[in-house]
């Protein structure tokens, strides 16, 4: 729907434990709470931070989202994903 809605979802996933728990348990159900279109929800579900930044989402949020939710929580992996995605 909008970059703003993506930022709300990523902000919640960065700072709210209950959001992270819900996302980990059922990403689809969790993301349905937000006004996201299918591509945006897929980008979050797939940790496609390059695609999110291409949509002008704040890098502060994409990094926080990755570091608090990605199974590896590796900054190097995060940067590799960004660079592979052309950011």
């Amino acid at each position, binding site marked *: 729907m909008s970059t*703003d809605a993506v930022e709300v979802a990523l*902000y919640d996933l*960065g*700072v709210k434990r209950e959001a992270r728990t819900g996302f980990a348990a059922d990403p689809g159900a969790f993301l349905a709470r937000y006004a996201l279109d299918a591509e945006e929800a897929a980008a979050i579900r797939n940790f496609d931070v390059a695609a999110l930044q291409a949509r002008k989402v704040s890098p*502060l949020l994409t990094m*926080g989202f990755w570091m608090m939710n990605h199974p590896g929580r590796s*900054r190097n992996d995060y*940067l590799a994903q960004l*660079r592979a995605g052309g950011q």
Partner: protein
Amino acid sequence: MGTIVGGFVLPHEPGLFFTARDEAGPGLAEVHAAYDRVRDRIGELRATSVIVIGADHYVLFGPQCLPNFLIGVGDVTGPYERFPGVAQDEIPNNRDLAGHILRHGRANGFDWAASKSLRVDHSVGLPARICALPNSTVTGVIPVYLASGVEPLIPMRRAYELGGAIQAAVAAYDADERVVVIGSGGISHWVGMARMGDHNEPFDRMVLDCVVRGDPEPLFALTDEEIVDQAGNGGLEIRNLVCAMGAMPASTGSLIAYHNAPDWVAGLGFAEIHAAA
């Protein structure tokens, strides 16, 4: 009457705490020494309150509410992030002075947002914990946040003017208070961007030179696009340094230290701003 007795610009480098100090190599030891220098100078200035101007990193304020500039007037805790050996409990605030700055500003064209209960992040919490509070003279740390990390951003010139509003409020304060102002921000850094880890030393030294000469004009001339291009999204935090400069207009300063290395998130610049005689 309150007086601003000194100012500093410094980074809020989280990497400071990842290695125990007694195991620090030369680079880390030099950065610790720079923070120690600021701490000791605050003590030598016999500061009673320290105002720390920081940037939210999109963890305190969400997309639903993004203040242009905010002052903590009540309970303060933090930093939000856990660092080895760094307390996260109460940071004593000078509530009376903070409230005065808010009221004075609102009466003079600066519509402060306020927080009555604020958990600060590392941009305020780090200098509060390691530079301000170790001094027995310091009884309060007043947190100020600018929209300097998350869009929509406070205009650079407005950040400087806000510093002037802080200075005017301190000068109009009834009680004797010796105030130090700290502008807390890394210089070049690409936070969460593909270039994360890069630095731009010429840009960093240009900014520090402006601080030392007391000349904000070259910084006013930069567009946000130019800053992001040359110094990353983290470079937008130089607004915090500019705000500290605005609190001490016509003051010159001296460089304390500059470091950049792959270990550091940002170009790390430390300088003191001397109170005009």
